[in-house]
């Protein structure tokens, strides 16, 4: 029963990521695009763990998810510091 809920959540998260791609391509300023990329990176953490639960090997996918979370946060901070005080 819980496998169907995992499949539904995976499909819903992929739809949310496609909705965020609209904001990434259409955003008026460059900070809107960065915001959309941050939301995509934060959704992908949950998506990796749910795929691991669907494949019944969650202990391996959780480690990949921790590494992805730390790398995504560091990338967002570096790009935001790079675009600080620039006239765009």
């Amino acid at each position, binding site marked *: *029963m819980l496998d169907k809920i995992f499949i539904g959540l995976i499909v819903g*998260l992929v739809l949310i990521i496609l*909705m965020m791609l609209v904001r990434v391509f259409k955003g008026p*300023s460059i900070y809107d695009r960065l*915001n959309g990329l941050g939301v995509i990176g*934060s959704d992908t*953490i949950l998506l990796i763990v749910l795929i691991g639960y669907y494949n019944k090997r969650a202990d391996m996918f959780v480690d990949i998810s921790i590494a992805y979370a730390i790398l995504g946060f560091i990338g967002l*901070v570096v790009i935001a510091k790079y*675009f*600080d005080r620039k006239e765009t």
Partner: protein
Amino acid sequence: MAIVAIIFLLGGFFFTFVAALGVIRLPDFYSRLHASGKCETLGMVLSFLGLAIYEGFTLTALKLFFIVIFIFIANPTGTHILSRAAYRSGIKPWTRKGE
């Protein structure tokens, strides 16, 4: 235990969907940042707590709890640093009079 896990997972997905809807539809950069800063954090925390409840007392549940603590620190920090960069580079907040 499975019922509680299902309730937590569906609540987390609801808040994540509301965050995505706010980022699509709100009129200003700062309000879009507000939608993605708070709803996104709550949705992620609820979802990972639901998965940890479904798992039980194992090492994987401890790692999921570590992800919860990391998201609770890192997501508002990223939102704040993005907002400060946008304010210093001269984006004005949206008001009702200005439009």
